[in-house]
């Protein structure tokens, strides 16, 4: 590993391959930034760390990374992560953006996702889970480039799941789900009628979530389906146990 210091900006270059995906981490806490960078690097990614919005934007002017991990609270810039996300999204519509933050409030999560982030994660998440998510995002990006394969499709009535692209269609209309939401729907719909408890859903979503987070995720998922189909009623709450997908 080689560490180069250029003007307050840390740039870590993956040694293994020039083809390695480049990940930018915007995080003001140096210890976390370096820990994440080390983990990503171990996975073969090339990582650039930035401690604030300005240096990150300057670097992105030159070249955009393949994926950005953003903390919301950047030093004195309390909403700096949101600003950065908005800026990036305007530059590149398809760039995967992940919020990784200590702020666990529902309001922040909704705001972040509304700004076009692909995922909103709290710092509770373990490194392996984070790696899995990042890998999944890249996989989806790759799958988008290729023609759709039949094998990767699961159809359950009006529901159509593309496991490669990680997209879901309801009545042939795409449902804009985040990665976590996709995995939750996937876990439920794979075996319709089976109750999935919270732990199972958590494992499927590659995240450590508490009950309330699952509840709000399910609520958000329902809302997204209902936006397409007012009569959507396929996710049933089984009180005290979990949720199940009802085949229509």
């Amino acid at each position, binding site marked *: 590993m080689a560490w180069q210091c250029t003007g307050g900006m840390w740039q870590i270059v993956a040694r293994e391959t020039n083809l390695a995906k480049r990940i930018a981490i915007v995080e003001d806490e140096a210890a976390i930034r370096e820990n994440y960078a080390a983990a990503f690097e171990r996975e073969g990614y090339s990582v650039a760390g930035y401690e604030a919005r300005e240096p990150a934007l300057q670097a992105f002017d030159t070249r955009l990374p393949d994926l950005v991990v953003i903390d919301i609270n950047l030093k004195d810039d309390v909403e700096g992560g949101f600003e950065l996300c908005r800026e990036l999204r305007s530059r590149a519509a398809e760039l995967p953006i992940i919020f990784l933050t200590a702020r666990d409030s529902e309001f922040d999560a909704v705001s972040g996702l509304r700004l076009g982030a692909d995922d909103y994660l709290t710092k509770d998440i373990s490194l392996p889970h984070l790696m899995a998510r990042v890998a999944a995002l890249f996989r989806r990006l790759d799958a988008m480039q290729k023609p759709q394969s039949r094998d990767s499709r699961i159809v359950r009535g009006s529901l159509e799941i593309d496991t490669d692209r990680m997209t879901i269609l309801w009545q042939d209309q795409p449902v804009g789900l985040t990665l976590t939401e996709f995995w939750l729907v996937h876990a439920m719909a794979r075996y319709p009628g089976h109750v999935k408890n919270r732990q199972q859903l958590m494992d499927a979503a590659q995240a450590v979530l508490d009950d309330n987070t699952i509840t*709000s995720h399910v609520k958000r998922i329902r809302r997204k389906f209902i936006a397409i189909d007012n009569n959507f009623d396929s996710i049933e709450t*089984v009180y*005290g146990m979990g949720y199940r997908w009802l085949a229509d």
Partner: protein
Amino acid sequence: MNLKRQLLLVSMLTLVLPWAGYQFIHETESALRAGQQRMLSGTARAIADSLAQHPEEFPGPVDGQVTADQLYGHPLETRPEIDGYFDDWPLERSSLQSLRGTDGPTRFAIGLFDQSVYLYVEVSDRNVVYTQAGAAALDDGPRFSDRVSLINTSPLYLTERIVFAAEAPGVIVAYVLDEYGFSPDPSILATWQDVARGYQIEARIPVSRLGTHLGVVVSNTASDLETPVRSASFSAQVPGAFVTQSPELGAISARFAQSDMRMFVTDSSGWRIAASDNLEAANSQPTSAGSAWLRITYDALVESGQAPELALPDPGGREQQDYIVAALAGEESTDWFRSAESGRAIVAVAQPVVASGEVIGALVLQQGTDAILSLTNQGLVRLMNVTLIATLLVAATLLGYATWLSRRIRRLSVAAEDALETDDLRSALPSASSGDEVGDLSRSFSRVLRQLGDYNDYLRSLASKLSHELRTPLAIVTSSLENLEHEPLNEASADYAARARDGADRLRKILTAMSEASRVEELMQHAEPERFDLCAALRSTVAAYQDVYPDRVFALEMHNDSATMQGSPELIVQMLDKLVDNAVGFSSDEDTITFTLTTEGNSLLLTVTNPGPSLPEQMRYQMFDSMVSMRPSEDNKHLGLGLYVARLIAEGHGGKISAENTADGVAIHITLPGDTHGE
């Protein structure tokens, strides 16, 4: 002692009013009396001065004369019959003068009426000895008899004795004895009466027959042969001067006489030589029952004077009262008398009559004081009434005031208690806007409660704030540990790293629990309430609990088939999770945890009971607060947030949560508003 009693006791202070009134009446009475005495003194001085113009009317002292030897001629208002009896005399028996005799006292009186002197003598005699015919005038034997002699002299000129002796009871002849012999005097009328204890003589003698000095001598003999024993009204050689009232002085004093005034003039020895009596008799008004107690208080309050009988002129004719004696010594003096019975007072003034530097007599003026009486009477009645009314009024006012005050304070304390119990620490307390001490108290209470509320809020937010602040350092620790796994470690280091990971994991769980409350609050704000059936939710949840906790028995009692409500079923289930977690934690294996759902009006009443230890009384309200745990301290997995989350969910749904001890455990009651409109 409550406030009401205290103030009632204070109201007793009004009883000081009668005391003040008493002081007032007392002083007024004294002042009135003093004023009357002064006025009377002025009058007395004026009269005494005019009396002093007539010094000749005052019999001067005679050399060598003993005052006690003098006889007093009572002025009579009616003419007594000469029948030997005293009962028709217009005099009291107390007017009789007394002489000592061998067989008992001799009493006599001399009266004056219409130019005649009347003599009455009653002699105690065991053995009345009558005189022999013709021997009536013979005093010196040889045959003796019982007799009464009137010694009549005008010194230097005349000395004679008028002898009354009887041959038999009835009209007798009086003999006049002088140095030339004796003769019967037909101008003297006399009667002798025998009575049980002796005899009585009554006689009338023309004034012109008598001199200036008179004396009475009684001779008592046991038989006609024995020398009689004599008792005389005088001890000197000659009898004392005969005192009669002076018509001149009487006329003068009559000029000054006023209504309700008694006046008499004495000579230098105290003999009454003129009198006029216009003093109204003490009108003994009938004392009604109402004034009986008035009389008692009157006696208790007003200074008592001398008995009113002492104010009367001396029946014997000689005034010897202290104030008159003082006046005769040359000093003006006053006295006062009061009848306890009628309340009527008499003010008396004795004024010396001084002529050419010598006290020749005294003037006594007495006046009744109805004014004082009526003043004090009215004053007392008014005082009593005013006191009564004032005391009642003050007591009633204070009672009312105390009631009002204590009600305000009670309301304040009840409101404060309520605020504490319902945890509504920002509610307005009563009396907060009033400017008095109760208002101050209320504002202080409000401030204290508000601070308590702030503190409670701080405590509640502490958990989520803390968890938020700790999340970043925890992320550093966990990510570092996860990176460390990929480094070559020796066995010991790997162990340590594993332990550190365990610790960090536990820390993360704790932080998640700590932020749960704020997450629930957030969820509640964003939740879109839906109508759902609590019965269905309960059935499914309780079945699930049986799977999760196989050591416990779960019972579900529902009195209705369905109970719809508005809210978030997930949150309600989360609340049940907390309650079950709590119930399981405090019960033991094979215990039955019971869920009961009843409806009461439009409310749903859910009760979760579990056998187990009772709640300490002071924890009943605190147990639903943040970070309050009643579990043993070694059980550090619980931060005391579970029941707080349950409370947040219950209250977020417009409900209430409370706990109570049952016979063998604890019951937690949740009241939730039902939604029956849709049915």
